[in-house]
C-alpha cells in the first residue's frame, strides 16, 4: 500500500467515529478498529521490501521553494515504530471499547485517538524534517485533547495544559534545531541529512542544533528535568496512558534521537548530555516510582525511568548501545502497555488504583493477576522474560561506559536504577495481588470480560515468547538496528541469548534483583524515611514559574498597551515619520526629471477650496454637523481633482461614495452627541498639531518628490494599455483591469465589502437584542423633529426620478467596458436611488416594497462573479479567464458580449447589497416605540384612512 495512504488513513478515518456515534458504541469502536487495521495491513504489505533492506519512498512537491516537500520514507526504524503504533493501537482500541463507560463520548475519544495515530505514523514515516515537525506538533495537540478527555476533572485539564506547555515549548526549540540542521546540510530531507555526518559535526552550528533538537526530544520523552509532565498526564483514561504515555508518543523523542543517531551521535557533547540525562532520569524515575501509591503513577515514573534507560543507551554512541536501545524499546512497549492495561482493569473493577487499599486480588482476579505478574517480572528483569534480555544488554553496555573519567559511575548507577526498578515491580505484584483477601475494596473486584483482558494477554504472550526464544526477535532487531546505524557503524555480531556465561552483567543483574527483594522487605521503614525527606514538588514549581511568566508578560503588555488609542496613534505617526525621515536622509535622491506643469485658475480655485474646507474642518470639528458639510466639500474637491487629472471612473466612484458616506454619518449622528467638548489642554493640542504638521510635511515632500520624477523602470501599465482592447475586448482600460486583468483582486474586494456589510448587520442585531434595545426604543430625540417627515415634493420627486436613475445605472453599467462606468459605479448609483426612497418615503414604506433581502443580493453577486470565474475551468482555462465575442441581432448594430460583463454584474450586485445592508442596518436603530412608522408616505393626513393611528389619537 502507498505510504501516503498509510499516513492518510487514520486522519481520514478520524472523521468516522464522530459520525458513527449515534450508531452505537460497537459500531463506533468497530469503524475505528477497521481503519487502524487497514493501515496496519497496508504497512505489512511493505514488510518484504523493508526486510530486504530497501527504503520505500513516496513523495510529492509541496513548497519546493522552501524545501518543504511531502516526502515519506519507510526503512527499518520507521517500520518498527509504525508497527508498534498501529499494532498496539489495535489492542488499545479493543480495550478502550470496553474500558469507556456509557457516559463517555466514544466518538470523540476515538476521533482524537485516530488523529494521534495518524500524527504518530506521520512522524515515523516522514522523510522531510519540516513535515516531521508538523506531525510532531500534531501529536502534542492530540495528546492534549486526549489527556483532557475527561473535561470535568480538574486534574485532567491541568495535566493536559502542563503536557502541552512542556512538549509545545520543546517542539518550538526543535523547530529551531531542525532549521539549523537543514541549513547546515543544505536540504531538509532526512535521506540527504543522514549522509552528511562530517559536514554537520564539523559545523560551528552543530552544538546549537544539537541542544535545540535534544530539548525537543527530552521534553517529549520526559527526560530529566522535563520528566514531571508525564505523571500528571496520567489523569487521562487508561487506554490513553497505555498507548500514548508508555508505548508510543513518549517514544517519539527516542525515535528522533535514534533517527538522528548517525549524524548527531559520537561527539563528546552528545555523549555527555544524552548519557547523563538518561542516567539521571533512569535512577530518579525508579526511586520515585517505588514510593508511589497510585498504580498509574508508579507505572508513569517507571516509564520515565525506562525512557531514561533507552536514552542512556543511545547516548553511549556505540553500535551495541543502539541495538540494546532498539531491543528495549520493543520489550518495554510490550510489558509496559500490558501493565497499564492491567492497572486499568484493576481500577475499572475495584474502583481504586491506590495500592494501599488493594491486596489479595489474586483470588478475585486470577487472569489479571497472571498477566500483570508476568509483565511486572519482565520489567524487574527476571530471566525467561524479555525484560531480562535487554536489561542484561544495558548492564553490559553500562559496564563498558566511562563517564566523567570514572569507570564505576555508570555501572553503579545502572545497578541502582535496576535495583529500584526490581523493587517497584515486586511491590506492584506483592501489594496489589498477593497478601490476604480484604473486605474493604470500594467495589468487589472480579476479572473483566475477554475484551479487556485479551489485549494485554496478547502482549504478555509476546513477552514470554521473546524471553524464551530471543533468536526469534534477533533478525528483526538487527534489521532495525542497521537502519538506525545507517552508514555510521556496523551492526554488532552479538547473539541474543539467555545465558552468556558468568559475565559481569549477570552479577549486576543478580545484585539488582536481590537488592530489590530486600528493599521490598524493608518497605515500611524505607517509606517512612522517604516521607520524612524533603523533596521539591515539580507541579508547584512549574505552576509558580508559569504564574511569574504570565505576571511579567502582563506587566509588560499593560505598560505598552494601556488602552489609550490616541497614544497609539501618536506613537505610530511619529514612528512612521521618523522611519521615513531616516530613509530619506540615508538614501540617494536623484535630480528632477519632469517639468512642473503650469496651474491655471481653475485648479488653483479647487486647491483653495480643498485647503479651506480641510482647515475649517480641523478648527470647527467640535460642531459635528458643520464638520460633515466641510468634509463633504473636501470629498467633492477630490472628485473634481480626479476629473481634472484624467480619471473619470475615479471621479464617479468618489462622488457616489461621498453621498452614501455622508448619509451614513448623518444616520450615526442621529444617535451621537452633536458637539465634541473641549477636553485636552493646550499643551496636548500643541503636541498633536506638531505631530500632524510633521506628518503633513512629510507626505507633501514625498509626493512632490516623486511627482517631479519619472518612474525608474517602465510601468507595467504599458501592458494593460496595449492588451486592453486586443485581449480584454474593452476600451476603458481601468474597467478592463478591474474585471479582467486583476479580476481576482476585484473578486476578493467584493467579498471583503460583503463581509463588512454583514458585520454591520450582525452588530446591529447584537445591539437590538441586548440591553441597548430598550434604550433605543424609549429614546427621546435630542432635537425637534421636522414638522413634515415626508415632504410631498421630495416624495413625488424621488418616485418620478427612480426609474430614470435606474436607467442611468443600467446605462453606466453597460457602457462600463468601453466608456467610464462599470459595476462599482452603477451599483453605487442604484443604491443612492433606493436610499432616496428610504429618505423620502420612510423606512416601512420602502421595506415593504423590497422583494429581496440585501444579504441575498450580496450573496448572489459574489456567487455570480465566482461562477463566471469557474466557468473558464470548463474550457480548461485558469480561474477568471475572460472571453468576448461580437454579435449582431438584426435591428441593432453589432455589439459585444463579454464574460467580463457577467463578472461586472456580480460586482454590481455585491456593491448594491453591501451599501444597502449597511445603511438599512443603521436606519433600523432609529425606529422607536410609541412612534408608529406610518405606512403612508406623504404627510397629507396620515390618520385619514389608517384605523390604528386614528385610534391612537383618540
Amino acid at each position, binding site marked *: 500500500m502507498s505510504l501516503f495512504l498509510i499516513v492518510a488513513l487514520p486522519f481520514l478515518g478520524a472523521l468516522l467515529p464522530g459520525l458513527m456515534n449515534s450508531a452505537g458504541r460497537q459500531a463506533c469502536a468497530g469503524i475505528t478498529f477497521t481503519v487502524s487495521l487497514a493501515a496496519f495491513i497496508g504497512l505489512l504489505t511493505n514488510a518484504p521490501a523493508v526486510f530486504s533492506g530497501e527504503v520505500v519512498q513516496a513523495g510529492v512537491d509541496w513548497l519546493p521553494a522552501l524545501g518543504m516537500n511531502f516526502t515519506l520514507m519507510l526503512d527499518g526504524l520507521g517500520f518498527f515504530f509504525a508497527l508498534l503504533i498501529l499494532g498496539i493501537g489495535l489492542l488499545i482500541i479493543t480495550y478502550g471499547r470496553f474500558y469507556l463507560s456509557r457516559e463517555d463520548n466514544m466518538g470523540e475519544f476515538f476521533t482524537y485517538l485516530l488523529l494521534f495515530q495518524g500524527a504518530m505514523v506521520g512522524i515515523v514515516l516522514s522523510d522531510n524534517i519540516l513535515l516531521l515537525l508538523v506531525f510532531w506538533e500534531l501529536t502534542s495537540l492530540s495528546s492534549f485533547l486526549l489527556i483532557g478527555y475527561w473535561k470535568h476533572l480538574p486534574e485532567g485539564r491541568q495535566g493536559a495544559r502542563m503536557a502541552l506547555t512542556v512538549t509545545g515549548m520543546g517542539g518550538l526549540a526543535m523547530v529551531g534545531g531542525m532549521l539549523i540542521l537543514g541549513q547546515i546540510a543544505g536540504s531538509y530531507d532526512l535521506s540527504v541529512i543522514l549522509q552528511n555526518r562530517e559536514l554537520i559535526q564539523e559545523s560551528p552550528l552543530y552544538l546549537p542544533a544539537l541542544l535545540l533538537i535534544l530539548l525537543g526530544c527530552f521534553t517529549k520523552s520526559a527526560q530529566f528535568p522535563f520528566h514531571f509532565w508525564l505523571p500528571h498526564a496520567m489523569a487521562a483514561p487508561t487506554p490513553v496512558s497505555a498507548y500514548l504515555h508508555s508505548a508510543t508518543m513518549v517514544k517519539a523523542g527516542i525515535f528522533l534521537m535514534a533517527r538522528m543517531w548517525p549524524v548527531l551521535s559520537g561527539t563528546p557533547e552528545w555523549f555527555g548530555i544524552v548519557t547523563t540525562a538518561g542516567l539521571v532520569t533512569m535512577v530518579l524515575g525508579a526511586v520515585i516510582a517505588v514510593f508511589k501509591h497510585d498504580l498509574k503513577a508508579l507505572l508513569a515514573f517507571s516509564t520515565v525511568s525506562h525512557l531514561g534507560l533507552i536514552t542512556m543507551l543511545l547516548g553511549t554512541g556505540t553500535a551495541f548501545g543502539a541495538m540494546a536501545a532498539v531491543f528495549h524499546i520493543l520489550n518495554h512497549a510490550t510489558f509496559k502497555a500490558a501493565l497499564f492495561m492491567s492497572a486499568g482493569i484493576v481500577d475499572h473493577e475495584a474502583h481504586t488504583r491506590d495500592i494501599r487499599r488493594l491486596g489479595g486480588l489474586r483470588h478475585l482476579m486470577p487472569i489479571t493477576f497472571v498477566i500483570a505478574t508476568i509483565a511486572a517480572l519482565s520489567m524487574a528483569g527476571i530471566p525467561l522474560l524479555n525484560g531480562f534480555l535487554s536489561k542484561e544488554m544495558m548492564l553490559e553496555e553500562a559496564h563498558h561506559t566511562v563517564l566523567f573519567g570514572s569507570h564505576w559511575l555508570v555501572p553503579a548507577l545502572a545497578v541502582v536504577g535496576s535495583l529500584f526498578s526490581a523493587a517497584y515491580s515486586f511491590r506492584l505484584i506483592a501489594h496489589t495481588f498477593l497478601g490476604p483477601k480484604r473486605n474493604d475494596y470500594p467495589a468487589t473486584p472480579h476479572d473483566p470480560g475477554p475484551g479487556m483482558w485479551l489485549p494485554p494477554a496478547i502482549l504478555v504472550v509476546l513477552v514470554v515468547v521473546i524471553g524464551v526464544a530471543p533468536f526469534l526477535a534477533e533478525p528483526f532487531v538487527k534489521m532495525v538496528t542497521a537502519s538506525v546505524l545507517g552508514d555510521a557503524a556496523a551492526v554488532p555480531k552479538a547473539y541474543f541469548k539467555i545465558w552468556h556465561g558468568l559475565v559481569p552483567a549477570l552479577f549486576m543483574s543478580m545484585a539488582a534483583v536481590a537488592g530489590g527483594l530486600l528493599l521490598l522487605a524493608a518497605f515500611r521503614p524505607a517509606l517512612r524515611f522517604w516521607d520524612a525527606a524533603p523533596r521539591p514538588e515539580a507541579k508547584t514549581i512549574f505552576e509558580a514559574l508559569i504564574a511569574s511568566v504570565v505576571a511579567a508578560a502582563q506587566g509588560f503588555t499593560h505598560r505598552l498597551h494601556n488602552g489609550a488609542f490616541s497614544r497609539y496613534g501618536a506613537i505610530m505617526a511619529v514612528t512612521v515619520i521618523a522611519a521615513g525621515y531616516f530613509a530619506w536622509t540615508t538614501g540617494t535622491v536623484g535630480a528632477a526629471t519632469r517639468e512642473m506643469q503650469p496651474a491655471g485658475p481653475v485648479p488653483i480655485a479647487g*486647491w483653495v477650496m480643498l485647503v479651506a474646507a480641510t482647515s475649517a474642518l*480641523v478648527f470647527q470639528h467640535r460642531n459635528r454637523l458643520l464638520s460633515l458639510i466641510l468634509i463633504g466639500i473636501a470629498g467633492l474637491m477630490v472628485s473634481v481633482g480626479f476629473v481634472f487629472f484624467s480619471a473619470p471612473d475615479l471621479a464617479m466612484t468618489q462622488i457616489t461614495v461621498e453621498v452614501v458616506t455622508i448619509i451614513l454619518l448623518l444616520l450615526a449622528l442621529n444617535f451621537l452627541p452633536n458637539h465634541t467638548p473641549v477636553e485636552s489642554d493646550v499643551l496636548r493640542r500643541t503636541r498633536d*498639531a506638531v505631530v500632524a504638521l510633521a506628518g503633513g510635511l512629510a507626505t507633501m515632500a514625498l509626493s512632490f518628490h516623486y511627482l517631479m520624477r519619472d518612474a525608474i523602470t517602465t510601468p507595467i501599465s504599458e501592458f494593460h494599455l496595449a492588451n486592453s482592447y486586443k485581449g480584454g475586448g474593452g476600451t476603458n482600460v481601468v474597467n478592463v483591469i478591474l474585471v479582467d486583468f486583476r479580476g481576482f483582486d476585484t473578486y476578493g474586494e467584493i467579498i471583503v465589502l460583503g463581509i463588512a456589510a454583514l458585520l454591520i448587520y450582525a452588530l446591529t442585531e447584537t445591539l437590538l437584542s441586548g440591553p441597548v434595545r430598550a434604550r433605543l426604543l424609549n429614546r427621546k430625540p435630542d432635537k425637534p423633529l421636522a414638522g413634515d417627515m415626508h415632504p410631498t415634493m421630495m416624495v413625488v420627486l424621488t418616485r418620478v426620478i427612480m426609474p430614470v436613475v435606474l436607467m442611468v445605472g443600467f446605462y453606466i453599467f453597460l457602457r462600463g467596458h468601453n466608456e*467610464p462606468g462599470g459595476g462599482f459605479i452603477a451599483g453605487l448609483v442604484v443604491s443612492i436611488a433606493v436610499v432616496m426612497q428610504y429618505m423620502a418615503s420612510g423606512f416601512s414604506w420602502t421595506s415593504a416594497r423590497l422583494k429581496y433581502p440585501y444579504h441575498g443580493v450580496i450573496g448572489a453577486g459574489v456567487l455570480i462573479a465566482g461562477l463566471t470565474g469557474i466557468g473558464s475551468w470548463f474550457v480548461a482555462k485558469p480561474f477568471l479567464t475572460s472571453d468576448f465575442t461580437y454579435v449582431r441581432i438584426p435591428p441593432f448594430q453589432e455589439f459585444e458580449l463579454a464574460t467580463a460583463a457577467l463578472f461586472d454584474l456580480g460586482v454590481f450586485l455585491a456593491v448594491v447589497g453591501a451599501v444597502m445592508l449597511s445603511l438599512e442596518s443603521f436606519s433600523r436603530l432609529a425606529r422607536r416605540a410609541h412612534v408608529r412608522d406610518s405606512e403612508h408616505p406623504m404627510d397629507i393626513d396620515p390618520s385619514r384612512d389608517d384605523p390604528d393611528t386614528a385610534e391612537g389619537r383618540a
Partner: protein
Amino acid sequence: MEFLVASAIGVLTAGGIYLMLRLRTFPVILGISLLTYAVNVFLFASGRLTVGAPPILQKGVETYTDPLPQALVLTAIVISFGMTAVVVMIALGAYLGSDDDHVDDPAGSAGSDGRDAT
C-alpha cells in the same frame, strides 16, 4: 500643478492626523476619512499627473494616463466606504452601550478586563 497636488495631500494628511488624535469617536472617524482621501490621492498620483488623457482607448490617440493606479484606487474608495461604515457602527455600538464616546480607555482600567491570569 504638482506642487498643488502634493500640498493638498500634505494638508489632508495633517488634518487627518490631527483629528485622528482627538479623544472622541466622531472626530477620529472624520480624521480617518481625511487620511483615506490623502492616501487615495497619493496612490493615484503615483501614476503621475496627466491632464486630458483619460485611459479610454481611442483611434488616433497615443498618450494615455497610467490606468493601473486608477483601478487600484477605485476599489480602495469602495472598500474605504465599507471600512468607514464598520468603524462608525462599532463607535455607535460602543456609545449606545456605555453612554461614552471616548476612544481611550479610562486611565487605570488596563488589565482589569476580567480575564484570569491562568
